[in-house]
């Protein structure tokens, strides 16, 4: 066990591209979905997006739930990487916040989580000047590239 972090139960589609879970708040519960969408330009690269499932069956990536569970949600989102890569082991993922403000808000939590997952994934950070570097906990990134680490799996 790496650490104890709460995580919501996840249901995953057989192709590993859709993951649904429920954010539990004191006032309301909110259905959330993580979707891995093929990038329109780069083969084998998938964009990780997530948000609230709306009443008309679409995804609101800008929704604000105010359930005070951002960290649990982010842990759950990161957890979906496991299922995605189990089913799509050769694919790669790009992850960023839906807005610049959210990317900044998520940064510290994501860095802590990625530090714990480094042995399972290769992670690169996208810098402001559009260059990349191997992930460092102290780096500030506007996005993350992730692939499964096929070498160090224990």
């Amino acid at each position, binding site marked *: *066990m*790496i*650490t*104890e*972090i*709460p*995580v*919501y*139960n*996840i*249901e*995953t*589609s*057989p192709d590993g591209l*859709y993951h*649904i879970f429920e954010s*539990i708040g004191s006032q309301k519960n909110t259905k959330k*979905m993580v*979707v891995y*969408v093929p*990038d*329109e*330009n*780069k*083969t*084998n*690269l998938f*964009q990780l*997006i997530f948000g609230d*499932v709306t009443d*008309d*069956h*679409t*995804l*609101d*990536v*800008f929704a604000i739930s105010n359930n005070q569970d951002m960290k*649990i949600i982010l*842990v759950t989102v*990161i*957890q*979906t990487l*496991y*299922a995605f890569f*189990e089913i799509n082991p*050769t694919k*790669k993922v*790009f992850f*960023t916040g*839906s807005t610049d403000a959210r990317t900044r808000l998520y940064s510290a939590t994501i860095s802590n989580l990625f530090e*714990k997952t480094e042995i*399972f994934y*290769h992670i690169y950070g*996208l810098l402001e000047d*559009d260059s*990349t570097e191997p992930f460092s906990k102290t780096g500030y990134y506007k*996005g993350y*590239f992730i692939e499964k680490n096929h070498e160090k*799996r*224990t």
Partner: protein
Amino acid sequence: MKKELNFLGKDESKVKINPNIPKINLDTPELKKHLHKISQILENVKVPFESIETP
């Protein structure tokens, strides 16, 4: 809510495969705009994995 997050996923009960996950519509103007924005960010980025190809 589950405790003891296992990033290795050896406990498969933490992620349940469900073939009946409700399909959602990703083909909305807002989502298409958002996905396109990310693609634009990535367009000039050299992705740091060898097997990534730009058609």
